[in-house]
């Protein structure tokens, strides 16, 4: 096999994947109006970050990256619990999941 860059994996590959996941999650968060999907998108951003972290861990020969992913998972879990609870609460209130309905903070 020719040894081009795309044949041998570098850190950049994984960072690229992580960045793409992160940005897609971001776009999803902005464009989607369903509260649940918005939170799903944040989870996807976490996922992108996790990929990057694990890649760093691997390429820098350091376990801390993976440890951080554990923390990320923790936060994701906590967030899911709370955010989904809130979503249910909001849904009970307005009977809709549309994020645009909630704009009391409008200046």
């Amino acid at each position, binding site marked *: 096999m020719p040894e081009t860059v795309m044949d041998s*994996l570098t850190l950049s590959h994984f960072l690229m994947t992580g960045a793409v996941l992160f940005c897609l999650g*971001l776009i999803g968060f902005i*464009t989607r109006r369903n509260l649940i999907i918005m939170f799903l998108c944040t989870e996807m951003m976490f996922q992108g970050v996790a990929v990057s972290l694990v890649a760093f861990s691997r390429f820098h020969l350091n376990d801390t990256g993976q440890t951080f992913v554990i923390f990320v998972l923790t936060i994701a879990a*906590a967030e899911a619990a709370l955010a989904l*609870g*809130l979503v249910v609460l909001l849904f009970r209130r307005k009977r809709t999941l549309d994020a645009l309905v909630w704009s009391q903070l409008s200046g």
Partner: protein
Amino acid sequence: MEQYLEYALYIASVLGALSLALMLPKEKRGLRFVGPLIGAASVGGLWLFLSSDSFWDGRGTGMASWTFLYYYIFSGIAVASAVRVITHTRPVYAALWFVMVVLASAGLFLILSAQFMAFAVVIIYGGAILVTYMFVIMLASQSDPSEQNNQAYERVAKEPVMASAAGFLLLAVLLSVSFDYDALEAARAPVDPASTDAALIESTLQDRPLKIETLYVTNEAGEPVPAESVAPPANLDPTRLANAERIGLDLFQSHPLGLELAGVILLVSLVGAVVIAKTKVPDEQHAVSG
């Protein structure tokens, strides 16, 4: 060619943004099919550009062998699924596509020899969190299942063009940063996975020598012994520590405070979830309508 890298990245980002903007749900679905095409074209073009010989001339290699194939497969799945997550109009499917993202990234983790993380992600995300999501989706969706896609907020994305532009602007910046040559130079990884692992472990132990006295404070009989009197156990071969063991060491040795904080956060969210669940709210929709 190197000098064109940034432009290539920017062009690819612009194309990607265009494709995503087309793919996002909206009332008029006429040009939707163009999106994936443009997206595929941009990814493919970028790949071609990057894999040309002259560009990567002599600049070291990463993990040789065929693992790169797995990388392409998994990241391809991940990205495609991610696109589907944000473009699908039905929450249930979006959630399922997200499971795909999680699985694919677990694959990536395996390539990166982070077996523990791979399984953890699948179990926690794919298992626990996604199930919760599905549960809430079921709970909050319309009572009549036949009433599909009739919610405007499901069918129409908000400001897809602006959002895509902004998102891909950020992506372009991130990419151009991560393709920084100096960074690449520094990130060149050893070729041999085995030696990689050994080096990794060794560095782990060198940087943070095991605190024997804190790890082994009792003798075989379970009685406490003075720290000095304990020799490192013969079977503690650093090179033979598994991935999970190393993470455990790192977690408990270097980040005890973070661990405690994580515990507190989980506790707080537990309490918070209970409180939220018990909160009684007025049903404004019903109060207004009837």
